[in-house]
Every structure is written in C-alpha cells, then in structure tokens.
C-alpha cells in the first residue's frame, strides 16, 4: 500500500525512510530490516485508524489529493476530535431533553404541582416503606367549592387562576417534606409523611385558611373561593387506596355539611372495615365509610 505510493505523496521524513530502505548500503546490525518492519507497521496503523473512523470506501485515496502518512493520521485524529465533541454535545442535549420529559410526565403543567401518576408512585412507595419499617402518613384530599360555578360565571381563565391559587395555597400550608399533587380536575391530594390524624387536621385547617384568603381578579372586581378537605390517617394494614377512599368519604361529608371545612375519617373499632364498603364519593353517600368529625368554617 504505502510502500508503493509515489514519492511525492510522502513528507520529508517519510521520503528519507523510503530512500534509506531502498539504498543498497551495508546494514551490519540489521537496522534496515527493523526500519522496514517499523515503516510497514506505521502505515498499517494509519490504515487501521482510517477504517475505525470510516469504512474503506470513504477513504478511497483516488478521490482526493495525495496525502502523506502523517497528514492522513492527523486528519483522522482531527475528525475523531470533532465527532467526539459533537457526540458529547448530543448526549448532554439528550440528557436535558430526558429531564424535561421526566418533568413533563410527573408534573401538572397548569399548577406546577406533581401529577397523579407521580403521586400514585409515591403513595405506593410509602406503603412499601411502612410495611418494612413501620410509620404513618395521612392524606388530605382537597376539592374546590363550587368550581363549576366559577368557570361558568367568569370563564375558564378565572377557573385556571383559581386552580393555580388553590395549588399554591395548599402547597404553602404544608411542610416541605409533604407531597402535594393535582389529583384530578379541581381536586388536590397531599401526602403527609409521618403525620397522624391530629397533625393532618392542623394542616387541613391551615390550608382552608390559606384558600379563604385567595382573591381572584375578575372583570369589575374580585371574587373569593373556598375549598373542602377530607382527611384520613393511614391505618395498619391499609394501602393508600384504602386510606384515600376514607379521605374521599370524609370530603363528601365536608361537602354535604356546607363546604369550606374539613372532615376527618375517624379511626373506629367497629366490625365493619372501612374502605371495603365505600368505593367512591357517590357510593359512600348510601354506605358511609365511617364516623367523621368535621371542622366548621371560620371557627
């Protein structure tokens, strides 16, 4: 290959080497043979490098001006450097994109809270943690009062404003370690890790207060909004789904008792287990999930 290249395709050193190899000078120490082998190996290394960065058909020298070995080597190194640099950049872009997708798949776009998928995962994790290590948590299910009326009267922009405000009010009434998510349309679920019912009720009261102080700008003035909350503390043996059903039933109680209040699903030693009887808020109307205690508004 290279040894058959015309002389003018070699740089000075390469020409000198070829000349030395072709000369008939006495070679007492066998240096010429060593040089020959070294020369062939060098040429071979360049070809191997070229075949790594591109297959042979792209390195057809017939298509490009003659290049000596050193130039060919340097060209490949330069190409590798560029490809690595661009690939690195591609990878960090993909990593950023991944983060953005992760954020989008776990967060609610309107309120910025985590979404139902994320919350479900965290509740399941908490269930597993409690099974292994014990502990407790409480759930607060908050629902905006008369939300449809706000939407119908003032439009969806004000409705969105209400959701964002409620999300912020609810979130800021909880501890940093608590999780707060948009659970459904105008429904928000908070997971209070390590909390018992009493602590959860305090948080619920604080949240309602924060919601009451919200003011929504509408044409010609402002309106206010309230929310109702169902509170339930996890009981041994329950999954979050069971606890949530009791919180949901308590929320229904808060609604039916006049809204703008919280109700708690009280623990009870009755023989009828909670959670099994009440599937949803509507179902729990005929089959109450258990005794509940309620706060009264502005108490």
């Amino acid at each position: 290959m290279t040894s058959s290249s015309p002389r003018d395709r070699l740089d000075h050193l390469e020409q000198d080497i070829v000349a030395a190899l072709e000369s008939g000078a006495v070679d007492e120490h066998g240096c010429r043979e060593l040089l020959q082998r070294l020369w062939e190996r060098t040429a071979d290394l360049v070809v191997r490098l070229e075949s790594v960065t591109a297959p042979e058909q792209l390195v057809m020298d017939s298509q490009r001006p003659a290049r000596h070995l050193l130039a060919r080597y340097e060209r490949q190194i330069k190409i590798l450097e560029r490809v690595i640099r661009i690939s690195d950049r591609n990878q960090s872009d993909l990593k950023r994109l991944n983060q953005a997708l992760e954020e989008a798949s776990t967060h609610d776009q309107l309120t910025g809270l985590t979404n139902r998928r994320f919350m479900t995962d965290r509740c399941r994790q908490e269930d597993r943690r409690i099974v292994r290590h014990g502990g407790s948590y409480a759930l607060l299910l908050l629902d905006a009062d008369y939300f449809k009326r706000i939407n119908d009267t003032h439009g969806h922009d004000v409705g969105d404003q209400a959701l964002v405000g409620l999300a912020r009010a609810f979130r800021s009434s909880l501890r940093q370690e608590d999780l707060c998510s948009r659970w459904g349309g105008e429904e928000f679920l908070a997971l209070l890790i390590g909390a018992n019912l009493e602590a959860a009720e305090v948080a619920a009261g604080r949240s309602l207060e924060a919601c009451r102080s919200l003011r929504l700008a509408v044409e010609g003035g402002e309106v206010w909004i309230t929310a109702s909350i169902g509170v339930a503390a996890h009981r041994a043996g329950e999954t979050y789904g069971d606890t949530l059903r009791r919180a949901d039933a308590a929320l229904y109680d808060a609604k039916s008792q006049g809204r703008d209040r919280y109700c708690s699903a009280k623990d009870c030693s009755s023989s009828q287990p909670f959670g099994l009887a009440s599937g949803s808020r509507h179902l729990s109307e005929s089959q109450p999930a258990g005794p509940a205690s309620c706060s009264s508004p502005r108490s």
Partner: protein
Amino acid sequence: MQNLTIEANQSSPSVIADWERGVITMRGESYPENSFSLYEKILDWLASYLEASKRSLQLDLELNYLNTSSLRAMIELFDAIQEASEEGRDVSVIWRYDTRNPRAAELGKELKEDYTFSFVIVAIDP
C-alpha cells in the same frame, strides 16, 4: 449523468441530487443502520458532478438529527466540498433548522467551524 433520488424513511433522510441545478437536498433525520452505504452514494454522485463540469454546487440540508456515523460521513461530504472550494469552485452549504429544535442550529455552527466555503445557517419558521 442522472439525478440521485433516495426516499426518506424513519431513520434515513430524503436525498435529491439534481444534476441540472447542481443542488443536493437532504431532509429528515439520519440514523440509518448503514449510514456509510447511504452517504457513499452521495459522495460518489458529488465526485462525478464535480469532475464532469465546472458548475456550482449547493448542498441544501435540513437534518434534525444525525447519529455519530452519519456525522462522520457528513464530515467527508463537507471535506470534499472544501477541497472543491479550494480549487476555486463555487460551492456552498445551506443548513436549515427548525426554530423549535435549537440543538440543530448548534450542530450547524459546530460543523461550520472548520470550513471556509459559504456555509449559511437558516432558521425555518414552523
């Protein structure tokens, strides 16, 4: 010589090399299983075109994504254009990118760096 037309598929861009106009157009994403067999066809066409006449050549690209070996092959293409430019040929590259994909603009800038021929980066408004 004839035109070269390669249909796009999910992992391979559309290629139209127009002999009359002296324009090679590539659109799409490039991560084919064998990127070298794709780019070899383009390189061959380019070599024939440059050899056959002294007319101008434009490479019109709209590529949102290139995998590493496509990138490697694209550098071969640009190098060939650079050589033609150094021989005094009228050659140029247009790199079009979607404004929603700023990464493609960055890639264009990165590729442009090593060349002296006309390399224009143009935003396409969606």
